[in-house]
């Protein structure tokens, strides 16, 4: 069996499930043998999540427990490893969120399996898996191989086309888990939730850097354009460090990686660390005063000029 671990938040399934289903179906097809795809949903009060997942896979395993209300790497890895072992999974697919990438190494160690992180392609030939992933701050595409009865793979968000839901819902089963007691105690949470679409799932991202001038400038130009386009907003490390924007909006090596259909970089010069978080975007637009800014080298479209004037003119044009 192929096991997919479902990412979800606030009662909603993450888009990654549909991308993982595509990867799993392609792989099941290439590999032959048992092609069934099983999804594992971990959490508390997750009835709606499980129902949505049932339209994606052949079988849904559900652990709806108060003990799983809060994500914990030790809990999640124990649950996933147990289910993978009992179901004799040949492949464990895990999403690309921060928490998924955090607990996946633990699963690999528990299963004595290789870990293929953040893959953008995945192929099987016998019991050998071949995958591609980005390295060197997303400047190099590397091909890796792993062999053996089971492998753990995390999937890069946006790399696989999302599958479409099926009409028939798969059967759901409760799983009985032997869970450890978490040792990390969470004492407080600061949610940086935005009313906009999530940065990593957005089709359009509008990002700002130092060139927007100030925190107010960011609101006036970047947020205004994002709202006009129904886009998520992103920021460079420089302005997150300056306190203009929350860390959750940071795009780049130490922030989020995005791969939208359209990425608009406003007042961003294009440091390599920022580019590593967005250089796979389908269409890149740059607006910057400095004609020498490296961002123009990877831009499909761009305007060299005054940021406020150009963004305000774009807003006026979009209203037409």
């Amino acid at each position, binding site marked *: 069996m192929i096991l997919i671990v479902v990412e979800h938040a606030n009662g909603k399934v993450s888009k990654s499930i549909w991308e993982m289903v595509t990867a799993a179906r392609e792989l099941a097809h290439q590999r032959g043998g048992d092609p069934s795809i099983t999804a594992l949903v971990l959490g508390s009060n997750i009835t709606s999540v499980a129902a949505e997942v049932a339209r994606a896979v052949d079988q849904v395993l559900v652990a709806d427990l108060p003990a799983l209300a809060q994500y914990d790497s030790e809990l999640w890895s124990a649950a996933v490893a147990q289910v993978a072992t009992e179901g004799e999974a040949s492949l464990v697919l895990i999403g690309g*969120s921060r928490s998924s990438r955090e607990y996946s*190494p633990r699963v690999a160690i528990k299963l004595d399996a290789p870990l293929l*992180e953040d893959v953008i392609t995945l192929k099987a030939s016998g019991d050998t898996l071949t995958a591609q992933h980005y390295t060197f701050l997303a*400047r190099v595409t*590397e091909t890796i191989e*792993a062999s053996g009865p089971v492998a753990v793979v995390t999937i890069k968000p946006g790399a696989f086309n999302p599958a479409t839901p099926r009409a028939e819902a798969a059967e759901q089963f409760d799983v009985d888990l032997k869970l450890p007691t978490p040792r990390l*105690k969470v004492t407080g*949470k600061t949610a940086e939730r935005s009313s906009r679409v999530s940065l990593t799932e957005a089709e359009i991202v509008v990002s700002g850097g130092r060139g927007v001038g100030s925190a107010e400038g960011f609101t006036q130009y970047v947020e205004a354009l994002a709202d006009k386009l129904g886009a998520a907003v992103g920021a460079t490390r420089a302005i997150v460090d300056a306190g203009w924007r929350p860390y959750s909006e940071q795009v780049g090596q130490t922030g989020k990686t995005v791969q939208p259909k359209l990425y608009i970089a406003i007042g961003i010069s294009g440091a390599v660390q920022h580019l590593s978080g967005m250089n796979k975007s389908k269409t890149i637009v740059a607006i910057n005063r400095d004609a020498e800014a490296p961002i123009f080298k990877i831009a499909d479209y761009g305007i060299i*000029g005054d940021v406020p004037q150009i963004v305000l003119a774009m807003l006026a044009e979009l209203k037409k």
Partner: protein
Amino acid sequence: MRILTFIRQVLDAEESVHVANNAVALENSKLVMDTMDEYGVEEALRLRESGVEAEIIAVGVGPARVQDALRTALAMGVDRAIHVETDIRLDAIALSKILAEIAQKEDASLILSGGQQADWDSHALGAATAERLNWPQVTWTSALELKGTTLNGKHDVDEGSETFTLELPAVITTQQGLNEPRYPTLPNIMKSKKKEMRKESLDQFNVTPKLKFVSAEIQVKNRLNKILDGKDAPVAASQLVDLLRNQAKVIA
């Protein structure tokens, strides 16, 4: 107590990447300690400066040149270094076996390691090492303090951040914002030359790589590079919106 900080030597972020014979070629490029690992070294030093009695050991795995990065850690203030010499590239799962065994041999109770490697872009080493040791871990840590054997701090999660408390032993992975790494001072550079750099062979760790690295290539997406002059903002804006609507077809 003993603190291990894991050190990796990577390409300086300002350097271009070159590929030769299906692999990234690092010869003739400037190599530095991974910034993420600098945060780890700095944090270990700060924990000690806050009054924790600790010996700090830097650990590096890789070819002879990795000693340069370990020397930098020593010059920053780390007490001694362990270099496991090998030319084989090890994936994070394999590497974690070495780190976990050294932690056990050295009786360490805290391991600091980078949140994401600047070369292989992997996040896995910290959690994999914690799992091998049956320790808890915290990833993407942005604030940390140690009182007795209790760690308190803050770390980033998918949406926002959490504060946490945790008992030693533990693995902590670092993140930008955790601290501002210090520069080695000249007297400390001089002192570091006398510090212990212990060489160990890979054989004793009995490590088998889990991944085979087949090839590497630099894929540059061809970009249209249609850059407009924005002296007349309304005209340029109108042209750009038109291109996005009718040529790229990415906005309505």
